[in-house]
């Protein structure tokens, strides 16, 4: 059943909408770029919106990518198919454009916004995060920072997340296609560490999360 849903999504839908959200400095734009360029190379019509300027490190950063029969780079409300959240609060913020069927992949590493710290407050408790994500059926929580460290460089969080995104099969690209982009863009040593990060992200979602055919992902809530 799940495999069928995936195939339907990949080949029949007119458009796929992806949001990559995180905090400035986490490699959000790079992650979006890797996915978008791979889809472009594979002959898809891709539009991607980036916002540069003002927020550099520590501010919220969002990239929206649309593939298929689309013109505007901005995703309409309720139409995100997959959200790659590099940070829990930013994941939930991006979920404003999600619907119950949206795949939400969330890096569990928290970055407390200064606006909270300044008031002497702490990060949202895990229960609140789970409650806020309750409306969504497919939520996968990933320790991308841990996996990036395992790959050999904490800066590859974004590549881990890209791997996780590909493993959901929501995006019309394969791991092999994504690796071609990595190979084109990175020198040998950077490629190796990024390939490891990509595989770790893919395997995490493949082996640890998607185990049955019903498509239900309850990792976060369990």
């Amino acid at each position, binding site marked *: 059943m799940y495999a069928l849903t995936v195939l339907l999504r990949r080949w029949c839908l007119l458009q796929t909408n992806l949001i990559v959200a995180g905090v400035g*400095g986490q490699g959000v734009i790079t992650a979006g770029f890797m996915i978008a360029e791979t889809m472009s190379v594979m002959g898809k019509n891709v539009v991607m919106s980036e916002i540069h300027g003002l927020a550099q490190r520590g501010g919220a950063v969002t990239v929206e990518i649309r593939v298929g029969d689309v013109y505007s780079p901005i995703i309409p409300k309720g139409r995100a198919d997959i959200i790659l959240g590099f940070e829990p609060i930013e994941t939930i913020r991006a979920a404003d454009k999600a619907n119950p069927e949206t795949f939400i992949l969330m890096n569990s590493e928290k970055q407390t916004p200064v606006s909270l710290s300044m008031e002497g407050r702490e990060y949202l408790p895990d229960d609140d995060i789970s409650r806020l994500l309750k409306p969504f059926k497919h939520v996968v929580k990933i320790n991308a920072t841990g996996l990036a460290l395992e790959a050999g460089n904490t800066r590859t969080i974004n590549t881990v997340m890209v791997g996780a995104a590909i493993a959901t099969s929501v995006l019309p690209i394969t791991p092999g296609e994504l690796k071609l982009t990595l190979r084109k863009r990175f020198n040998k040593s950077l490629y190796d560490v990024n390939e490891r990060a990509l595989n770790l992200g893919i395997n995490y979602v493949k082996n640890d999360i998607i185990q049955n055919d019903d498509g239900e992902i309850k990792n976060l809530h369990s």
Partner: protein
Amino acid sequence: MRDSAYHVIYSANIIILYGDIYIVMIMSLVDHILSTGPGEKLFLLGNEAIARGLLESGVNVATTYPGTPSSEVGDVLSNIAQKAGMYFEFSTNEKVALEIAFAASISGLRSFVFMKHVGLNVAADSFVSTVYSGVRGGMVVMTADDPSMFSSQNEQDNREYSALAHVPMFEPSNPQEAKDFLVKAYELSELFHIPVLFRTTTRVNHQRGDVVTAEIKPSKKKGVFTSNPSFYVDLPSNSYTLKQKLIEKMGDIQKYIEDLGINKIISNGSEEYGIITSGEGFNTVMDAVLDHNLKSDILKPGVTNPLPVKTIETFLRGHSKIIIAEELDDFLEQRIRSIAQLLSINVKIYGKMDGYFPYSHEFSVDTVSSSLSKIMGFDFVLPGDPVDMSSIPQRPPVFCPGCPHRATFYAVKRAVNMAKIKDVIYPSDIGCYSLGCYPPFNTGDSMISMGASIGLATGFAKVTGQHVVAFIGDSTFFHAGIPAFINAVRNNSTMTVVILDNRTTAMTGQQTNPGVPVNAFGENAYEESIEAILRSTGISNIKTVDPYSIKETLIAVSSAIRSEGISIVIARRECAILRDNEMRKEKRWEMYDVNQDRCTQCLRCVENFACPAIYIDHEKVKINPTICDGCGVCAEPYVCPYRAIEKVVPVAD
């Protein structure tokens, strides 16, 4: 100072805010922009496509002052212009940039000057008159507008400048068009000897999409200027004639653009509805029409001043109802309603003058769908919020970890508090330091335009008895600050100005400015001294400090705010992003952590210093090692009086 580091940083790449990995990626992309042959497909940012368009147009000279959303064009050119045989510079401000481009153009070369929308306000004085004079080599002026004000102080619709200046204007909708329209713009400019306005918006400049390349045109090496005062000297007697010629020229251009092949018509065989749109508005209209399966034809003129009247007339006559869907002002609507009235075309027109479309903020597919549903009578309900966002804390832009501005503002606030001055006015200016207006610093009582802090400070000082402490950055100082300083001196003002010199034009992506010893290409350039410039205006009370020393800044500001006349504190320390790159190259990394035995949870650091790396977790103050920049300012006793923040040996990355 650190010449070699500047060479490395500025010549390596400008877009370094995403770290090493991004540098590698962007560098190879930038090379592609120049090295890719014709007929290839590239996946380019709008601004990268524009850079390619310049190569395909054989442009010889390009100038700019960095401004979002136009900056990446400059970032690409600083990498490839020399290889392409193109002259490129980051000019001191937009007006100077435009004048250099104009000189190139009337010397027979093709020139390009680009800026953000408010930059054209700065350049407007020269711009409007260059249109009277006309050009020889093609000249294109790009204005990058910012609907919804992602990084701007206003969202003025610069299409209005095309009417004000009587200049033809192109409006592309995506990266491919941005490149292709540029080529057409240069042809038009040279054919009619007139500058061309090229109007983009954030969603075009920062949209990434497929771009099919064409042949790169070789550029000429040298221009030749031949004196022709009746054109290039805008004396009243000359301009009197030139204005008349300009009006005639625009009449000819109106006919020319009808068949330029850039007016897009999408026909769905509708006799009832026809939608006229332009720029990014077209993209949202297309999506709304596809999403709701609407039966409507669509017309998108590629040149929106002058409008292709014949094309529009045919479109108006072919439909009983016309919808004009454009972002921001009713620029098209006013003109199209006039055309219908002039030609006595009986057609119902819907737009924003009758309240269907908003006058502010960029379009989304949702806003356009909502407006179209009211006009065309179909059901459209915006999906509700899936998540209650009210419990989600905001994450507004903040000073980066290690940013010297945070330390400067912290010291200024401490100095003002210690002096027990309650009535301070803080005029601020445009740059990263604008963020000082947010809590906890609240050091921004005004911020309107480049360099305005100094003029406002002078005004406040004259009309109130309050203390004035103004802020301005290094690039803004050179851009428009200097005349205001001269004015303040001449008129015996009393005020304190803190100049936040982070040795770069940081907010737009770390471009060079006159205060650093290198130019756009990373070559040696004269390093202007802010101190020397200020001294030459007659200001003598100048103190330069390192903001990483709170004590030094505190003492300097305390003394400055007690002085009569104009007192200056220059807080000089390179941008944290430049410093990071330097340190990474030297494989040097420092990090700080909280010694929990000493920490009393006074929370002074989180509440007053506001560094993204410092946070509270399980009632303990902690430092996030992945964010900490190792600047060490928080370890100073002025921030942590208990000396609980200590340097630690970082784990290797």
